[in-house]
């Protein structure tokens, strides 16, 4: 450790010139500190949200978890539950999966693999990106005009079908963008290899590009489901009910009748007088978070299995 050889006669580098610098790297440390602060704040905010809804909701969830999950809406704070919201949200997730995923992924495949790279294609891509930033209430107005009013015969008006279709429109740009990016990230060496063996374009897409892009496409799909499950504003415009009674329902009424969704439950509970309804909104929020968490979990497991199957 003693600096015996400061400079040697042969002109070799001295030990001192390679030693760790004693003077502090102030700028580097400040930068690192700012980064840590940013990470810390982000984590703190998420934890604060989680903590506050759990604490506020604990009263309801702790005392009557099962009845809260299994009861329909009610004017009695001791009986009110979110089963209608859970049912609505799950149906909406199903409708989005059936409608937005095939259309969005199909559009992405066309744009990335078939469309010529010209001004028109680029215009479409820019438009799709902009659509992803349109406020959700605007989609609600579109849904009201198209699904609730024009297509009333099919959707039954303010129904879970209208709500699901509206949210499908809302997430469609997200599905297209994430699927496009996943497809674009597939290395061209894979498709070249398949083309070089005499594969047609369809075979290359089916056997190489889609399997390789699937994990990324799945991630985008989950993000969009989570987005759809969290939206209240468009459903409000489309006419999700704050309160409805479920009498006997025929099969079609399940889809064409009155509906609500978990975010609507949250909004409605929050509007009620706080002394009786304290904690209901928070408890419903926890239910939303848990549902989204489980959907994420399923997707992560699916993604891991696909990735493993592909041998990466």
């Amino acid at each position: 450790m003693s600096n015996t050889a400061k400079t040697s006669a042969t002109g070799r580098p001295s030990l001192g010139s390679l030693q760790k610098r004693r003077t502090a790297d102030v700028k580097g440390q400040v930068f690192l500190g700012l980064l840590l602060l940013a990470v810390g704040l982000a984590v703190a905010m998420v934890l604060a949200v989680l903590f506050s809804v759990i604490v506020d909701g604990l009263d309801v969830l702790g005392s009557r978890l099962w009845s809260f999950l299994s009861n329909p809406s009610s004017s009695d704070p001791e009986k009110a539950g979110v089963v209608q919201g859970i049912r609505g949200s799950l149906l909406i997730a199903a409708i989005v999966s059936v409608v937005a995923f095939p259309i969005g992924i199909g559009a992405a495949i066309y744009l990335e693999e078939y469309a010529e790279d010209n001004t028109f294609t680029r215009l479409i891509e820019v438009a799709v990106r902009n659509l992803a930033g349109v406020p959700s209430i605007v989609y609600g107005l579109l849904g009201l005009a198209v699904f609730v009013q024009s297509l009333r015969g099919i959707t039954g008006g303010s129904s879970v079908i209208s709500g699901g279709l509206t949210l499908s429109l809302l997430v469609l740009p997200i599905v297209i963008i994430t699927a496009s990016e996943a497809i674009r990230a597939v290395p061209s060496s894979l498709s070249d290899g398949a083309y070089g063996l005499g594969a047609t374009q369809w075979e290359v897409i089916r056997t190489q590009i889609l399997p390789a892009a699937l994990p990324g496409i799945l991630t985008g799909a989950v993000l969009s489901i989570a987005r759809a499950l969290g939206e209240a504003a468009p459903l409000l415009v489309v006419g999700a009910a704050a309160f409805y009674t479920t009498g006997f329902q025929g099969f079609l009424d399940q889809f064409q009748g009155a509906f609500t969704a978990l975010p609507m439950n949250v909004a409605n509970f929050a509007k009620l007088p706080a002394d009786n309804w304290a904690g209901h909104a928070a408890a419903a929020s926890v239910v939303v978070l848990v549902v989204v968490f489980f959907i994420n979990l399923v997707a992560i497991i699916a993604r891991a299995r696909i990735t493993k199957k592909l041998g990466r």
Partner: protein
Amino acid sequence: MSTETEAPTIKTEIPTDGQTAASDELPSKGVASPPVFTARDLTVYYGDFRAVGDVNLDIGEREITAFIGPSGCGKSTILRCFNRMNDLIDIARIEGSLLYHDIDLYDPEVDPVAVRRRIGMVFQKPNPFPKSIYDNVAYGPRIAGVKGSMDDLVEESLIGAGLWAEVKDRLGSSALGLSGGQQQRLCIARAIAVSPDVLLMDEPCSALDPIATGTIEELMKEMKNEYTIVIVTHNMQQAARVSDRTAFFTAEADEATGQRRGKLVEYDETSLIFSNPNDDRTEAYITGRFG
């Protein structure tokens, strides 16, 4: 295993037609007839950019033909004309003619997919599919419509690519677990599984170490008995070691635009190119004075 290969087999006997200077202009010099490929005034454009122009050469059957030259000289571009891989680049277009046996490869009636089944390709970077070793080899036959068990075909192809002994106990494991050299031999096995007529190799050894390179060079010499091979290489020693004929390309700045464009400078038997090139640029390149 390649270390003792008899140094570049420079054949001392000068071919008879080499002495008749008049034949110098003929691109087909000495190629056994009929040639597999006949390129006449083959020119490739990327958009308005003329990447490589006026290429005239014949590729002999069951020979190894090497394309050498500095970066940007268009040798890979020409190679990719031979199985119409350039079709995949929207802005690429060709002029001139390219015959495969007697068929015009760029005839509108010709299906590029069918062309690529006859004319296989091995790429610069080993690109096995993210599937098992078995499925990699079986991929080509499957898309070509072969049904049922392909055990024999997979075994034959892997033997043909000199990989069978190393992988026969783990055909079901991922191809991505192989070493770079093994992956490249797997890509060769994959290419020969569809029984092509020609193998195009685009710098197949540039990502490999010398030992893996030696293995593949040995393999090419064996495969020459069954396939016509065209190889693009940056490695002049490699061209000298394995090829029968060598085409030297270079890139020259266009006087009008200043853009560098590729051109074929000289094409001859490898022994002549490396011992007694006709063109000063070839000599400068092979002796390492430029490029």
